[in-house]
């Protein structure tokens, strides 16, 4: 058991190191010094309160979409639609947040976050119901729902919700709904969003490991036939998994509006972070605690790469390369790991 956990931790770490080594060859080939580049990257991600704030702000939605996708994986659902659910959550939450007026923040903020979660959950439930009652595969339906969500959001910010000149955007949300800022350095500010997200990750961990409902969802993910035999309703599980997964993605969207200036709904809000959730869930091995670290890793790589661009003129594609290699290694490690398990199992049964 313990060895497994150590292993689960070591694999991503080693993958990152290998990825950095490979990327350093590329950095060398474009005529830059990799050691300098990486030190700029580390300083750029963690070098000061401003950098840390930037990293954590970036990490928050990544963590939540990572949890959304990871949660689905645990229950055997491949939710590719975090992108659309994030958008729809943000949209519904933003509409509520714009109109909530001047109620106290302790009331306004939970209401807005919950609306965002409901937005994501409802959107995801469409795919959930389709899978449960018609067998339509969630990969197909969630991808289609992504497109609808993205186009709907573009329409909203250029049409019904559009306000002012400048970027297509909704009006600003009510002040009461803005998340309290805990750190402000120059133009960078960090709200309490990251703490909310980490708490959500811990709740998800407890839910999956300690509750009967978590036991049931994982069971369905592993073996739906046995779960059904054990009195677990597969349909209910599928719908619930989709709804929770969507709620987490929706939360990623609304928290990004409540906690990050300009506190408005803008077009293309998700910006691929819903898809990033898939990579993050994979690196974090679908474990909520692992996902926290995976999201931190990706966020740090990205803020660090921005610094690398600015200070060393290293193209930010390097980070895409690093990220790609990490995912590849973690994924192929799983192949290797499964093979190991398989041979172990064979030996085990032969010996018995």
């Amino acid at each position, binding site marked *: 058991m313990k060895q497994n956990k150590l292993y689960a931790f070591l694999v991503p770490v080693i993958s990152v190191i290998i990825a950095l080594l490979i990327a350093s060859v590329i950095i060398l080939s474009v005529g830059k010094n990799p050691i300098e580049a990486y030190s700029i990257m580390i300083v750029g991600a963690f070098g000061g309160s401003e950098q840390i704030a930037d990293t954590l702000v970036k990490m928050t939605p990544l963590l939540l979409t990572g949890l959304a996708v990871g949660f689905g994986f645990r229950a055997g659902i491949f939710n590719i639609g975090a992108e659309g659910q994030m958008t729809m959550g943000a949209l519904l939450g933003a509409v509520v947040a714009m109109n909530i007026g001047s109620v106290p923040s302790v009331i306004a903020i939970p209401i807005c976050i919950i609306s965002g979660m409901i937005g994501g959950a409802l959107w995801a439930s469409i795919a959930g119901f389709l899978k449960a009652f018609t067998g339509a595969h969630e990969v197909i339906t969630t991808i289609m729902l992504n497109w609808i969500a993205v186009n709907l959001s573009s329409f909203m910010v250029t049409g019904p919700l559009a306000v002012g000149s400048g970027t297509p955007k909704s009006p600003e949300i009510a002040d009461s709904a803005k998340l309290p800022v805990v750190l402000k350095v120059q133009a960078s500010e960090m709200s309490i969003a990251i703490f909310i997200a980490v708490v959500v990750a811990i709740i998800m961990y407890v839910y999956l490991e300690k509750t009967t409902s978590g036991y049931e969802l994982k069971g369905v993910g592993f073996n739906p036939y046995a779960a059904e035999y054990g009195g677990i309703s597969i349909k209910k599980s599928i719908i619930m998994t989709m709804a929770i997964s969507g709620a987490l993605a929706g939360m990623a969207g609304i928290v990004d509006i409540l906690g990050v*200036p300009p506190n408005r709904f803008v*077009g293309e809000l998700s910006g691929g972070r819903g898809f990033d959730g898939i990579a993050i869930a994979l690196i974090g091995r679908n474990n909520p605690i692992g996902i926290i670290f995976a999201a931190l890793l990706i966020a740090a790589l990205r803020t660090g790469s921005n610094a690398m661009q600015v200070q060393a003129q290293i193209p930010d594609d390097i980070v895409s390369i690093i990220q790609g290699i990490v995912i590849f290694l973690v994924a192929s490690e799983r192949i290797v790991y499964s093979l190991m398990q398989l041979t172990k199992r064979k030996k085990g049964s032969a010996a018995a």
Partner: protein
Amino acid sequence: MKKIILMVALISLFVVSAFSLKVFMVTDVGGLGDKSFNDGTWAGIEEAAEYLGLETAFVQSKEQADYIPNLSNAAKEGDIVFAVGFMMTDALIDVAAQFPDTYFIGIDIETTEVYNNIATYLFKEQEGAFLVGYLAAAVTQSNKLGFVGGIAIPPVERFRYGYEAGIKTYEELNGKTIELIKGYANDFNDPKKGKDLAVAQFAEGADIVFHAAGTCGNGVIEAAQEKGAPYYAIGVDVDQDYMAPGRVLTSSMKRVDVAAYDAVLSVALGTFEPGNHVLGIVEDGVGISPMTYTKDDVDPVVLEEIEILKNLVKEGTIIIPDTQEALDAFIVPEIVF
């Protein structure tokens, strides 16, 4: 004009010894290689930097949440920071307030107030597009024209207003009826979407499609190239005629390179002027490409007419609409060529 500025610049170089400014360009999620807007701005910066011996650097944002950190980082490192693209408007204002000693240049950005360290450059896209619209209306054989926009933000819409005004002008002066098919990709970065729209518009009968869609528009040009004669695309921002020689009728140019060049020089020369700068045909900020590959496809009379129209715009005789309301109210002036 340029030469004089250059002279002054060189002189001031000697005056201000140890003159070493660093120029940063921060883009939105579209990066270099778009063959239009971003590449054009970068070319202008590079040209100015080369003359002045400045350092330059380029930063691409991956998502909207990157705008503020990237602009902040650039401001810490650099003396002149370009925020390129309408989408960065809000972030630019926020960050500039934190770095009063840094000069910020916004391209395609308009601020409602004047900030001491922000100079923004806008374009009368409608003026170039007006000429392009007139040309397209003259060349079309199917009497159907297409338009592919990126996201319906003001700079894109201004292209459309001018285009429509140009078409309307041709219609009234030549007694022709032309149908316009419009579509938006809701994106600036995906050529596939632009191509899909263009293919659809060609299928509906349009034979010339004008794009104002950044990298999306590359797909429009590709579609025209695949269709072959007599179909045309019309390029945008920079001279895109070379991208499919003979199949890009012309390009509605927006001289972001000129704006970027002027902006860098203004800082170097100490003539930095905060506020919005609007460049039109008069300032050489917008125009129509020289039609290197397609001149012979067009009736010389039409080209002459366009020359005349251009002068009328310059003189201020014709005012091209820059809003929907103005477009609706646009009355084609009596022109005798």
